[in-house]
């Protein structure tokens, strides 16, 4: 029986899934054009054309929906489709005349077409209360609430440049929000509570102590149990201890919430990749629609859209106008939380007299 087990075969070879037009023109594409929001054509050196219709997805999808995608792909695309690195679905066609019916059918099914060019694409996000133990907020619900409002920017190409929004439900940042134009990040804001009785069974104390970036955790004997204590003033709620040891509870219904970060990017275009920087330190969780988060994101996008120049990503725009102006234009308050106090904090200080007055 053990002999029959198949292991270590890895993923199927991608060639099986490539449309014939791709196989024929692999590596020989000449240029592309965005024909309308969500629709582009890639033209090969041979003159062959590949049309792509991109549609948004909540990423958490039922197999019912996946089957529907498959059905649509069969109907219009000879069965070929792909997903993007931001979890959109891309239908791949060679017959231009099928584009409109395809769009009609997918939109009818509830999946909007767009997210291409100088637009907002899908929000890269994480598990939240749907599946993760660490989450300081839900992921899917916040994303749904925000995207409902951002849809016009998904369906049009009316922004100065690409604008990438990402969401992560805790500082682990599985959504890699740390380099996004706008990052929505769930945050814990209180030190974890320790279940001393369970701790010895569940965790190795040295690993637990080492897990804390600020050295806030110390071995301690509590009620005769070998456990740990947390120096509250040194804890900045990263939850790393909780990842290492389930007996150290970081979640807190009252004080968990959401922070907003801006100006990050990944591409090397024009300026080097950048981290996102803190815009709003804390907004309390307000499910099911997180209106304050939605409003904050919309506000930032509107101010950006009005003020940035063409091809200027969020962070490039802010660098041009300066952070003081960003706070002024958005009406966001600059607080002590905005000033870095971690390891390389000193590197963020303004070490020049070059300032706008």
């Amino acid at each position, binding site marked *: 029986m053990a002999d029959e087990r*198949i*292991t270590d*075969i*890895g*993923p*199927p*070879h*991608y060639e*099986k*899934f*490539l449309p014939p037009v791709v196989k024929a023109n692999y590596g020989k*594409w000449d240029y*592309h054009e965005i024909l309308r929001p969500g629709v582009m054509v890639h033209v090969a050196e041979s003159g062959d054309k*590949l049309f792509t219709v991109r549609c*948004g997805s*909540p*990423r*958490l*999808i*039922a*197999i*019912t929906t*996946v089957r529907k*995608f498959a059905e649509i*792909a*069969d109907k219009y695309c000879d*069965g070929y*489709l*792909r*997903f993007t690195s931001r*979890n959109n679905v891309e239908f791949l066609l060679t017959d231009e005349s099928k584009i409109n019916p395809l769009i009609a059918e997918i939109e009818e099914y*509830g999946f*909007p077409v767009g997210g291409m060019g100088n637009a907002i694409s899908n929000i890269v996000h994480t598990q939240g*209360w*749907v*599946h993760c133990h660490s989450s300081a907020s*839900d992921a*899917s*619900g916040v994303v749904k*609430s925000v995207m409902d409002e951002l*849809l016009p920017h998904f369906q049009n190409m009316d922004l100065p440049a690409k604008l990438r929004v990402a969401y992560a439900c805790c*500082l682990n940042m599985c959504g*890699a929000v*740390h*380099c996004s134009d706008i990052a929505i990040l769930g945050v814990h804001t209180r030190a974890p509570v320790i279940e001393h009785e369970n701790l010895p069974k569940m965790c190795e104390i040295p690993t637990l102590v*080492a897990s804390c970036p600020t050295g806030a955790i110390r071995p301690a004997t509590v009620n005769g149990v070998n456990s740990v204590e947390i120096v509250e003033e040194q804890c900045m709620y*990263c939850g790393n201890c909780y990842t290492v040891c*389930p007996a150290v509870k970081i979640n807190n219904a*009252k004080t968990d919430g959401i922070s907003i970060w801006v100006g990050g990017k*990944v591409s*090397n*275009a*024009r300026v080097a*990749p950048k*981290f996102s920087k803190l815009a709003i330190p804390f907004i309390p969780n307000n*499910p*099911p*629609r997180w209106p304050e988060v939605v409003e904050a994101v919309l506000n930032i996008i509107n101010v950006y859209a009005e003020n940035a120049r063409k*091809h200027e990503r969020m962070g490039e725009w802010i660098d041009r106008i300066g952070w003081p102006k960003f706070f002024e234009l958005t009406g966001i308050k600059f607080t002590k939380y905005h000033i870095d106090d971690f*390891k390389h904090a000193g590197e963020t200080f303004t070490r020049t007299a070059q300032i706008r007055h």
Partner: protein
Amino acid sequence: MTGMKYKTPLLDELEKGPWPSFVKEMKKEAHRPMVQDALGQLERSYEEHISHWKHGGLVGVMGYGGGVIGRYSDLAEEFPAVAEFHTHRVNQPSAWFYTSDALRTLCDIWDRHGSGLTNFHGSTGDVVFLGSTTAEIEPLFADLTKAGWDLGGSGSNMRTPSCCVGPARCEWAMYDTLDACYNITQNFQDELHRPFFPYKWKFKFAGCPNDCVASIARSDCSVMGTWRDEIRVDQAKVREYAKTVDIESEICDRCPTRCIEWDGKKLEIDNPNCVKCMHCINVMPKALKPGLDRGATILIGGKAPIIGGALLCSVFVPFLEMDPESDYEDLKELTEAIWDLWGEHGKLRERVGEFIQRVGLSNFLEEIGLDPVPEMVMAPRSNPYIFFDDEIFETDGE
């Protein structure tokens, strides 16, 4: 739609609005008790503002150390169908290409063994099957592998590599991202499935510096396509673009090294000063094309904030040939040298980026056997705290 076991007035709010609703998606699979209870527990989270999942006991496939994430309800008595609600990470095909048949195969398998809820895709790139029981893990795995699929990574191992659409559809792919991703994934199956590293290791393959898989921010090793020779310019087409693009302000002024000049007729690029940022090419894709002497820049050490702060990858090899004929031997050798060193000296939960910072890049290079080159740093050191070896009295100086 199936009848609902619990009232979910809060979640129901999220069925409204134009963006596709994950709640609707969940309800599509609500014929399963597991999904009913998942909805019930989620509604509870919405009421109480807190997660009701917990981690704990390791679960997995025999002989594998990763690929399944154990998850348990802390309200198991109330929601027994999600007492266990594990995820499975299924290694996606390169660049997320599928046929409808392939998708249906995956759906059929998941239909038999789990909740019917999925993520297309997880943030690392896997197909994520969301919610199954411990009992289903092996049977699911057997069905998967029989159908030609395998699990991806989790834990302290190589994670599922991913890549951009590259040469399959993009005119800018400087090397074959799909092939490289597949080749590396297959080559390191053992490292993908059997955790033995100090912490996770992620590979991401981007065909050009646009980095459509966010490799520089989200992987320990970013293989980023680039070129060394001149940008190919079709002056006639540039003049065509000039009708709609303000070349001076949109291109010349935005070039990071200001190495482009436009006199209204001719575009001149000072190629030795071009840093291959892609911007001019992005804006005028029909007129400008990357050069033909192609390969990749290898950058290492990217990661999210835990523990020591987030890092972007940094340049490790400025230019590496990426010819599929070579079977990516250079990249594999480098990778193995790093894994050996980091495997031996890395601390528990220390990503390679943090490891390099702790031991010092120069020491790291010396151990790996790479020469230091100025491209690796934005600037030489400014602090004078140099550890001198005896050799300064022989080789250095000038």
